[in-house]
């Protein structure tokens, strides 16, 4: 790890100004991702601006009937918040499916959004990686790529975004509140993360110096008809090979609005609105869920080790939709897939 300077920001404006004015500066929140990357010499910020003392630890009700989650709310506090558990159980479930209790205690809402890929090569500075070193090449495409993307990949990069929480936030159509040197703005969740394209060095659409201040959830609408199904290489403490966040509005037996987001398959939580629309006004059947899965996975492409993800994702979507339609969400403390 290289030497760096450290300042603790007292106000949001100070924090933003400090980072925006220094291309080598980074915000640090829980540090669970950034410090690891610094130890591996992957990220080498010359200056860390500690934002953990900023007043962004509240979860507040919004006028629209939703909740606004401060960027510094720890993942565990968020998962166990009573309002979240009651009105957004999908979010709580997705968070609890991730990492470990210790990590969730330290990790923050903002940090979770901005955490970087777990691509093995990204972490190993002795290997070519376009995300770490633009133009150096992508080792994963022809290398070890079990955990890599099958959708939305580019020639330059096939990495995934590793978050569980973000998959639920995508399904819930959250809105990200951002403050930058030019003021505040909001970003729809679907527009927050990006596909790698020719510039895989950018994971999301934030400009340097822009800070996430909050994540806003719209008014709740899915009741118990939701699930977060995470499939991984061991039963806990592993990133998703494939995960599915599903939420269905049920009107008796008839399906209203549906949201399905996939994790572990792309550079961002993967949603296809046309796939979701296939269910509208229909009865829940396996065949129909299969069609949704096929539509979601249209164009999916494996790179060797991860070929299996296409079929696994298909089956996971069908199961998750079945769970959600039945109002029988996956329980995270029990590893039986219901």
């Amino acid at each position, binding site marked *: 790890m290289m030497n760096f300077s450290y300042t603790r920001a007292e106000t949001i404006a100070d924090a933003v100004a400090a980072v925006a004015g220094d291309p080598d500066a980074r915000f640090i929140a829980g540090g669970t991702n950034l410090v690891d990357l610094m130890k591996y010499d992957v990220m080498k910020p010359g200056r860390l601006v500690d934002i953990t003392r900023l007043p962004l630890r509240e979860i507040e009700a919004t006028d629209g009937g939703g909740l606004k989650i401060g960027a510094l709310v720890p993942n565990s506090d968020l998962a166990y918040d009573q309002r979240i558990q009651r009105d957004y159980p999908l979010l709580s479930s997705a968070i609890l499916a991730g990492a470990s209790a210790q990590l969730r205690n330290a990790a923050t809402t903002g940090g979770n959004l901005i955490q970087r890929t777990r691509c093995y090569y990204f972490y190993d500075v002795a*290997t070519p990686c376009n995300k770490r070193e633009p133009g150096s090449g992508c080792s994963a495409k022809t290398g070890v790529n079990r955990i890599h993307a099958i959708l939305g990949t580019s020639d330059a990069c096939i990495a995934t975004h590793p978050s569980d929480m973000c998959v639920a936030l995508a399904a819930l159509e959250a809105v990200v509140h951002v403050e930058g040197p030019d003021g505040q703005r909001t970003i729809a969740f679907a527009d927050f993360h990006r596909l790698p394209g020719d510039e895989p060095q950018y994971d999301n659409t934030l400009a340097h110096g822009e800070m996430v201040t909050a994540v806003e959830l719209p008014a709740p609408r899915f009741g118990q008809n939701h699930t977060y199904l995470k499939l991984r290489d061991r*039963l*806990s403490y592993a990133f998703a090979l494939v995960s599915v966040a599903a939420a269905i509005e049920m009107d008796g037996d008839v399906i209203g609005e549906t949201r399905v987001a996939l994790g572990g398959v792309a550079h961002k939580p993967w949603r296809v609105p046309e796939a979701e629309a296939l269910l509208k006004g229909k009865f829940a059947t396996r065949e129909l869920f299969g069609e949704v899965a096929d539509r979601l996975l249209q164009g999916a492409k494996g790179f060797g080790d991860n070929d299996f993800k296409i079929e696994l994702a298909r089956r996971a979507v069908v199961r998750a939709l079945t769970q959600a339609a039945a109002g029988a969400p996956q329980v995270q403390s029990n590893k039986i*897939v219901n």
Partner: protein
Amino acid sequence: MSNIHPYVGRANTRVDGPLKVSGLAKYSAEFGAEDLAYAAAVPSAVAKGRITALDVSAALAAPGVIEVLSHKNRIDFPEDDEPFKNDMVAVPGSPFRPFRDDKIHYAGQAIALVVADTHENARYAATLVKATYDVETPNVDVATSANYYDPPEKRDGIPPPPDPRGDAKGAFDRAPIKVESDYRVVAEHHNPMELQATTVIWEGDGRLLVHNKTQGVVNPKNYICSVFGLDEDKVRFFSPYVGGAFGMALRPHYDVFLAVMASLKLERSVRLVLTRAQMFTMGWRPDCLQTLSLGAETSGKLTSITHHAIQATSMFEDYQEPIVNWSGLLYDCDNVSLKYELGKVDTSTPSDMRAPGATTGVFALECAMDELSYAAGVDPIELRLLNYSDHDQNDDKPFSSKELKAAYEQGAERFGWSKRSFEPRSMKEGHELIGYGMATGCWEAMTMPHKARATLTADGKLEVACATADIGTGTYTILAQIGADALGVDIAEVTSKVGDTSLPMAPVEGGSWAAASAGSAVKLACEALKEELLKHARGLDNSPLANASLDLVTFSNGRIALKADLAKAVSVADVLKSAGVEKLDGEAGYAPDEEFTKKYAGYTHGACFVEVRVDEELGVIRLVRIVSAIAAGKILNPLTARSQILGGVVMGCGMALHEETKWDKTLGRVMNANLGEYHVPAHADIPEVDVIFVDEEDGSNPLGIKGLGEIGIVGAAAAVANAVFHATGKRVRELPITIDKLL
């Protein structure tokens, strides 16, 4: 008070437990000195080739840097191999020497050592060392090795496969039932919690005190003295605690070599702690390709066994394991052909990893037996009983003891094996297919020569000492139990000492031989001490024990009394006082009984039973129940013994479902060299494990024990794989069994 005895055979919590949980137990990286400098090893970026240029100027200019060592400015060491083979665990070939020259043998090989005033400065400066390389294409996959060969020189202590017996091929061709399959056990790396580390304390006057993570202090001391030409009297290795090792700390690694080199060069104390990623540049369970062919009569009685294994080794050494031998030993069969070959890869030399050889070989054999059970339509346990062997056919001798039938029986009973329906995919609940699987385990019961000392002081305190190691197994505790029983003192009055070259000699702690060997040596040392005490007691004025011999007296509560009349006694304190000494010693050596080992084959056995549940559509595997029944002679301490079996079983589950070192085939680098991506089981993966020790009498050593460090893992992975087959009807022959293989 005497009802506290015997300690041996009873559960005793770890005597070193309080020190460990309170952080007072000091590990090798925790010793220090005022002049301590901190070192960091710089890893090679490429897997094969030569260093063409090494630029250390930026590193030297970095804050706090004292020196940067490399092949260009290292201190002299011998050119020939011999001094480097002063290592009890050396293997045939040319031992690796860090900084020998500009050659790169494997990715991550240390190419430079930065020494600085702080750990952080050393680590940072290490990132500034810039090397350029002439790169050659590496091969890290044994499946694509240039050729396979029978190692010309055999590894010391590892029996090569026995000669073929009968006519395996003919019998296979004629067999009405045949099973033939290929299996692959992939590479696994050791990942004990404690990183490989060395702290060298420069004591001046050429004296070194070395704290090194090792499974036996004598071995690295011999090695270091030999390669650097040091005076043995001036070097002491002291490593009282080891945070897990499992075989990886048997051989001296580059940490101790480089730390000592830096200390000698700089004439000051130096510490080197390797990184987690660097734990993947040493000591690993090699990738192994196996073919197993079984021929049987329609009843399931074996008529032919052919087992062929090809295992990875490094380019410079022929590491070897007994992989196939088990197939000539575990079951009764007259036509057996076993073959073991090596294939070279561009990696560091593999090393022993918990039950080396058996873990890999028995996995294939026990899966093949399971396949045979279906081919013959015979229950897996019935099949094993039908082929039960009372005789080691490899060496043509009877077993010293073998209560494997009792292990099958008690394990099956506890597990509820009778509820298993024979057909695969025949048991189901909800979305989950249910599978019951079992497998046999087998490991050598060995002992090695050990010396020990027992010392009694006038205040009634006993110290037992032996240079062996406690790698977390409970050696401290069992030695204290043995000493407490021998001298009739409370275990709280006993101190065990291990991990110090100033103590009586012991070899490395491995092969599950430490408890039996060090334990026997301590017991004999205690007998010698008692003899000495009694001699003095007899000589006391008006001694009530004047004519007593050792078999007529008893030692308890700090007194020596006549068994026939306990009132006739003297106190140990009086004995020491009248002898005019503060303490009395007994020293003794234990050596394996060669007559006995000539006559008998010594093995531990186990039977592992596993229930898995597999989501039929998604392939999610859950282990829900495990029973491990073990026959391993007398159990010294059921608590520490159970922990050994638990650990072995958990490691076996990891082997079955999780562990895999993933190499990039082009770059030759390990890509998952961290505990986030190199998966070992998490708590959620491991169900309740029920351990049974069956009664077994064995006469091979004074304690009647056999060792437990390794038997728990042998067969465990096969039991899981067999359960997965029973559940799903899918036979996964390449580990680990991951979700994709069940889709």
